[in-house]
């Protein structure tokens, strides 16, 4: 297992979370774009689940994912066998770099110069576009949000809605500048312009690259959920289709897909079903009129098998990438997706990224949460995100001798000073007599209480010490 994935030459410094978050907090446009988008997504999700027994459905979703993960090695073997029988070539990549090389080699073998891409977060994880560009292969995003983000030279700020940080005006200016469209707030006009340009690329692209939502082991089927039809075009028009996905995306049967799909679309965008649901079961057969000549699947590990080694962290791999945790996160809503500096932002990013980039690089991610639990409450597969955040906080300071840390880069956040403060705190609070003496003395000396208390009082007044502690008052009462 390599320690970190991707091509570090143009990596954003994840450690600089604080300054980016601070800048976002003070950017009214970012605040407004995210607040209104997240409010909309939350109410759509709520409406979509109306009349459903959501808790039972979530329980089912969690069990489907748990059962799949419990048999992951066997399911992956079965998947490979079935896919191979169906004529889909299977490749295994230990990390993002290897996955990129596999895609490149497939392209080179076909002398491909242009790649059209459907939406794929794993390809973002791999930084595939950047890599292909270095190799002289043009890669164009065809999902509208991804297309906008690519035009802007940015990364997605949300895993489902990559350009959610931009409003119509910003998109209009961007498209005007980069593609010569008229300055217009007419969304239909802008969409039609993008479609016009993409249509030509679809027809001429040598290779289509897509992600996968569910890989069905029993039948060897790759399921792809999308709304724009670009996924269908990407996987059927070019003569070669390469799907990339994480090894955790496999499920045992098609029946399992139905529960997960019902949860996925409702949780993500509040849709009962997406406009397109593609089931890819192989290259074009002799009697078929369309479809690619070649279909490949690249199964990417990139840290996942190390997550798999730990019974608690394993829950991270249940994720079906709906983004509901982001939509409901009060922190994500305030700082937006780019503040995190990671492929996956928001709550799922905070528990997943430390495994992909190391807990040294991602040391600030687990602490950037009030542990409010909104993410865990809406997660369609019941990932206990707050518990995993606490686990990673423990890992980042090596805070539990009984359960030694094991995530790559653990202990990076431990400072001797902070450790000493907590030791002193624990000593006082584990000694009742000392505690009563200390708190009693503090209330007696409350006139001397400073009115400023660091970061707390930048925004609030300091809480005021009572004249007598509850301990003292209860003692007086009993006398």
């Amino acid at each position, binding site marked *: 297992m390599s320690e970190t994935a991707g091509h570090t030459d143009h990596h954003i410094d994840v450690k600089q979370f604080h300054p980016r978050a601070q800048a976002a907090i*003070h950017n009214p446009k970012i605040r407004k774009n995210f607040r209104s988008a997240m409010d909309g997504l939350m109410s759509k999700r709520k409406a979509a689940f109306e009349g459903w027994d959501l808790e039972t459905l979530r329980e089912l979703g969690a069990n489907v994912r748990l059962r799949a993960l419990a048999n992951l090695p066997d399911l992956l073997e079965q998947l490979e066998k079935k896919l191979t029988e169906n004529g889909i070539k299977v490749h295994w990549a230990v990390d993002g770099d290897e996955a990129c090389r596999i895609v490149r080699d497939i392209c080179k073998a076909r002398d491909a110069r242009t790649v059209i891409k459907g939406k794929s977060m794993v390809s973002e994880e791999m930084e595939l576009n950047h890599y292909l560009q270095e190799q002289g292969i043009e890669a164009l995003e065809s999902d509208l949000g991804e297309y906008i983000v690519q035009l802007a030279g940015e990364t997605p700020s949300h895993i489902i809605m990559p350009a959610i940080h931009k409003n119509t005006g910003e998109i209009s200016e961007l498209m005007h500048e980069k593609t010569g469209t008229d300055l217009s707030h007419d969304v239909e006009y802008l969409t039609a312009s993008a479609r016009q340009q993409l249509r030509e690329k679809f027809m001429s692209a040598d290779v289509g690259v897509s992600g996968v939502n569910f890989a069905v082991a029993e039948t060897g089927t790759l399921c792809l959920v999308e709304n724009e039809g670009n996924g269908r075009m990407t996987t059927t028009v070019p003569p070669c289709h390469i799907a990339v996905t994480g090894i955790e995306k496999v499920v045992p049967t098609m029946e399992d897909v139905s529960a997960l799909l019902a949860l996925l679309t409702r949780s993500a965008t509040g849709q009962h079903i997406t406009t397109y649901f593609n089931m890819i079961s192989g290259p074009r057969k002799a009697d078929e009129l369309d479809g690619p000549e070649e279909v490949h699947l690249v199964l990417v590990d990139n840290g996942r098998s190390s997550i798999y080694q730990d019974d608690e962290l394993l829950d991270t791999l249940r994720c079906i990438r709906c983004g509901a945790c982001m939509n409901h996160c009060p922190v994500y809503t305030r700082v937006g997706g780019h503040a995190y500096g990671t492929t996956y932002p928001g709550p799922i990013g905070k528990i997943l990224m430390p495994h992909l980039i190391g807990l040294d690089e991602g040391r600030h991610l687990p602490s950037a*949460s009030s*542990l*409010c639990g909104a993410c865990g*409450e809406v997660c369609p597969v019941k990932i206990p995100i707050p*518990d995993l955040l606490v686990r990673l906080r423990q890992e980042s300071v090596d805070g539990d001798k009984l359960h030694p840390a094991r995530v790559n880069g653990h202990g990076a956040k431990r400072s001797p000073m902070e450790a000493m403060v907590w030791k002193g*705190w624990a000593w006082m*609070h584990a000694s009742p007599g000392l505690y009563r003496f200390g708190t009693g003395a503090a209330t007696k000396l409350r006139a001397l209480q400073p009115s400023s208390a660091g*970061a707390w009082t930048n925004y*609030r007044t300091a809480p005021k010490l009572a004249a007598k502690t509850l301990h003292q008052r209860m003692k007086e009462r009993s006398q």
Partner: protein
Amino acid sequence: MVDPIKVYPAKPAKVYFYGTCLVDMFYPDAGIAGVELLEREGIEVLFPQNQTCCGQPAYTSGYHDEARSVARAQLDLFPGDWPIVVPSGSCGGMMRKHYPDLFRDTPEAAKASDVAGRVWELTDFLLNVCHIKLEDLGEPTTVAMHTSCSARREMGVAEVGPKLLGQLKNVNLVEQVRPEECCGFGGTFAVRHPEISGAMVSEKVDALVDTGTRQFVTTDCGCLMNIAGYAEKNQKPVEGQHILSFLWARTRNKGGQPS
């Protein structure tokens, strides 16, 4: 994986009162109000003088060894088989939900699970175990309610506060926008990420002020010192108190004991 179903005990003769460190030092009136309400229900309140803190600040900061040593000092405080009531969803959640994890694979595992199983958030206990009936003796007023995230999501008591307030005939409960959104306290989060926390509490205060009420009540003193502290510093016209203080003040008989 299924959240344990809450099985309320029969109304007991006695309870252990776990005051929490914030109530102890900053909001003892809220603790006394809780004790008064319980006693009025005919319950004898046992207050172990050796209680300190549940250990949560260290736990959520990742210092589990330190959290365990503090939590361990609480485990022996409740030798009788009485319920343990806590005037906080947050500390209650720590004890009920996280103690079993914290003491997993330790000699104290069984004791920790026993304690955890007896912990109740106090308003939940008053409503669903004591079946309290509140007689409102106060003037007509309006109030907003902020249920803490841990009271809502760890202790599952989101409906309790509004039901209790609903018993008060002269109290008009108004609802702020996004009532379920975090106020931004989050313990050490507020000082580790002050700007984000500040942005959250500022929107929470705006939401409360926009209801038109001048006061709010809450289940947790962490949220209280965050929200009320922000309002005070920024001169926003809203004040807060613990829901127990409010309930006691509205229903205490004038002839009753001074608190």
